[in-house]
């Protein structure tokens, strides 16, 4: 679930961030402020909104997404897209003027300039993905509300840790926490290796 939501959020958030970072026209500041506000979205609020949309009386009830993994992925994507877009925007805003000016001097069109901008942002793409992945791993509020933490169906490690803690089973909760941390370490190490490979 974490991989699915982080990859989809990267596919949606990165182009948005690049476009926002390279855009220099009117309204940019307002768009950046809106995105930065969304970066701080409390997961429980996202969970609540998704719950209301997917519940039996919600407008999207016919999709039957409540208490499903798909619903949880959607909730996480909503949380991650602004985060990834914001990370990309901050980077692109700093490099875009030089790239645009150089590309202009070479007579390159807007399309090729945008491609160059994306190419120049490949390290940041990895960093933005790691940021999203970390958030997805740590997130519990939205997935517990949308998924319902149903055993063997929508109970993920973070919600299971919460449940075991509530039941007073600290040993199992702690063990799950260590496993979660180990998985996160492995994934991060893999991405760091990829990052290192790109730098060479």
């Amino acid at each position, binding site marked *: 679930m974490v991989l699915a939501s982080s990859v989809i959020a990267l596919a949606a958030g990165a182009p948005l961030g690049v476009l926002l970072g390279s855009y220099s026209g009117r309204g940019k500041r307002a768009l950046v402020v809106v995105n930065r506000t969304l970066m701080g979205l409390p997961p429980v609020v996202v969970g609540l909104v998704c719950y209301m949309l997917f519940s039996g009386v919600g407008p999207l009830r016919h999709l039957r997404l409540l208490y499903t993994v798909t619903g949880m992925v959607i909730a996480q994507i909503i949380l991650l897209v602004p985060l990834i877009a914001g990370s990309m925007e901050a980077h692109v805003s700093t490099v875009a003027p*030089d790239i645009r000016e150089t590309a*202009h001097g070479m007579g390159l069109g807007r399309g090729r300039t945008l491609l160059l901008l994306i190419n120049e942002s*490949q390290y940041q793409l990895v960093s933005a993905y790691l940021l999203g992945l970390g958030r997805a791993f740590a997130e519990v509020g939205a997935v517990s509300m949308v998924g319902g933490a149903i055993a063997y169906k929508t109970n993920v490690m973070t919600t299971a840790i919460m449940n075991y803690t509530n039941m007073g089973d600290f040993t199992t909760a702690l063990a799950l926490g260590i496993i979660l941390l180990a998985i996160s370490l492995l994934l991060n190490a893999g991405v760091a290796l990829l990052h290192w490979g790109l730098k060479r």
Partner: protein
Amino acid sequence: MNLPPITKTYGGRRVLDLPALELADGTIHAVIGANGSGKSTLARILAGVIKPDQGSFPYVGQAGYMPQRSYSFRMSVVRNLQLTGAGRERAMAQLEAFGLAGLARQNAKGLSGGETARLALARVLMEDHPLLILDEPTAAMDVASALRSEEILLEYQARTRCTVVLVTHSMTQARRMAGQVLFLKDGRLVEQGETGQVLSHPRCAETQAFLDFYTL
């Protein structure tokens, strides 16, 4: 090349206020002046990177332009030149001329500041432009590289007969390269004329005062 009056204002502050100018075709025009005199703003307006307060220029979109901050793209050195649409053979020949052939396969992000400037100049000279705008192209280069780059630039200009606007802080470079000099101060054109006349016998006291710093 006749330029209309150019003004540029940033946040209520007028940073450039030039009268109509005539730049002789097929000539290298050195633009000199202290920091903040408007040289780079003029270069960026002529290149079409920024717009003046009003009007436009006939060469926008056709001019070759090397910005003050040289930029190399995250790809091999030779691919940086091929971005202009040139073939590998032509790109390699250009790298050879600029002494960068040995670095052709290296990632351009690993180049030093001087090498990046040589790459940027090599890249902009890959194509024939009717107008070439160079903003301190050799400022980051060592003396030998700067002199070699000047030679290549002079050959390019002689071959293409293009008009060159060369922003420089080097009076010796202006003497070696330019047929005409424009001296800017606080966004105004103080003096324009032949290189020998402006640099050796300036008509304006402000130009003389500026040049005096270079003979101290």
